[in-house]
């Protein structure tokens, strides 16, 4: 996603952009939504926030409100009922925003592929920035996915 702010570039603006990118990378706030997952990914996401793995050391904080969040971590295949919700949550998030799809189901529909109430993978509904495969992915994999996303945001 384009990180640049669409304003005439001035030296001051450059400094401000750099500052904004620095702040965003060092303290991304995430929101978690389960759009039809079996819970396996959700408990692993929660496990990454607890003492053994501690994602908070990267400045990542789990937020309750989409309006405060930079990154949406979505798990599971998208069901017909939660599709609207997922879109609404995404639309409520302020720009720039990123989506991380966690788990095989989020990537492709996984084991539920072909069930009648499934729309499909998360990227059929939202633009996804990072994919974390696994059923469920280990907490280390989730951390690596989030860190890789943050690395990609660094100004070149």
């Amino acid at each position, binding site marked *: 996603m384009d990180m640049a702010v669409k304003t005439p570039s001035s030296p001051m603006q450059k400094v401000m952009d750099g500052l904004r990118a620095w702040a965003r990378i060092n303290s991304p706030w995430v*929101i*978690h*939504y*389960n*759009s*039809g*997952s*079996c*819970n*396996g*990914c*959700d*408990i*692993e*996401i*929660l*496990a990454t926030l*607890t*003492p*053994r793995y501690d994602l908070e050391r990267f400045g990542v904080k*789990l*937020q*309750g*409100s*989409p309006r405060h969040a930079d990154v949406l971590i979505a798990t*599971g*295949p998208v*069901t*017909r*009922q*939660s*599709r609207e*919700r997922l879109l609404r*949550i995404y639309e409520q998030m302020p720009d720039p925003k990123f989506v991380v799809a966690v788990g095989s*189901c989020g990537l492709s529909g*996984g*084991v*539920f592929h*072909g*069930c*009648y*109430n*499934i729309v499909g993978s998360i990227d059929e509904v939202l633009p996804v920035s990072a994919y974390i495969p696994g*059923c*469920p992915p*280990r907490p280390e994999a989730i951390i690596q996915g989030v860190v890789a996303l943050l690395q990609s945001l660094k100004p070149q």
Partner: protein
Amino acid sequence: MPTQEQNQKFIVPIGPQHPALKEPGHFEFTVDGEIVTAASVRLGYVHRGIEKGTEDRTWTQNVYLLERICGICSHVHVTAYVVAVEQLAKVQAPPRAEAIRTIVAELERIHSHMLWLGVAAHEGGFDSLFMYSWRDRETVMDILETISGNRVHYSANILGGVKFDIDDQKRDFILKGLEFLEERTNHYMKIVTTDETFLGRTRNIGTMTKEQAIELGAVGPTARASGVTIDIRDSAPYSAYKTFPVNVITDETGDLLARFVVRIKELLESYRLIREILDHMPEGELAARIPRRIPAGETIHRVEAPRGELFYYVKSGGGDKPERIKVRTPSLCNWSSVINFAVGHKLADMPMILAGIDPCFSCNDRLIKIRRANQSQVWTWEDLRLHGIEYYR
């Protein structure tokens, strides 16, 4: 104007995306000031159509699909299914396989209850207990990973037996882990029953009497906390529970505190049971051969999931795919109790009361069809799919 104000209702909507629970569910609490006067729940955000999906997959493929009904109690779902299919095929799993199934089921109960303890404490604003219990839960996750190779979906069961063995090395690892967990569980018992601030959030909150529990059809630890002696491991033993009986743990008070106490005592009971099975491991094969086509017939099987009674109905038409699989999960049975005893409590107690039944949305979001008199209708895969598309359009 006072007359108008009296008619005004203030409804607090919560969800489906909300910070409290990690799963989507929508609740509406009608409040009068701070007191909840009515509650309603709207489920179905995670309805995926698994029961219909099973009819499109072979018996073996369904093992992996049904495991993913729920990520927390994945093993018991497959146990219920696999034992039902074995009943249809008239195959008996070897005793060692049944013992390993039971060990994994009890390890799963430990991981599920510790997870719940943390989440419920978090809902009560007691985040240090949340962090501590989740740290200690990693011990049982390590055990599960060591014996099965995966942290969450262990895939222990196959039709006719189990996939992996528990050798002496793994046995020692389990016993060492249990020792640590037992010490920590005793510590949690002390915290939950003596910490004044925590007792303020749990004592006399969401109380359900024994009569109410029976009337509302509560199951599992929620019912046992109200004094109902209902445990499938005890009343209809299956697998290794026939040879290694469990002690049913009940409490009389029926409030949130009782639900905490019952679940923590169940942890201690699970440690005892695993040690007993490991001491008397039957020798023998890990799996029996099972035909690819299951003979026609129908059967049921019940197991005790961490959240209560789990019921499976399996019907075979004689082919390599099932004709019908019906799942009745414990979380759905417990919802009516929450909605009933939420009334009269403060809005701030709602997260604790909701978490008190250990709700699992991915289990309970299933299609319920009310049967009308004189009207019978068979839904095909295509009908159901079209209905789903129309309904959610």
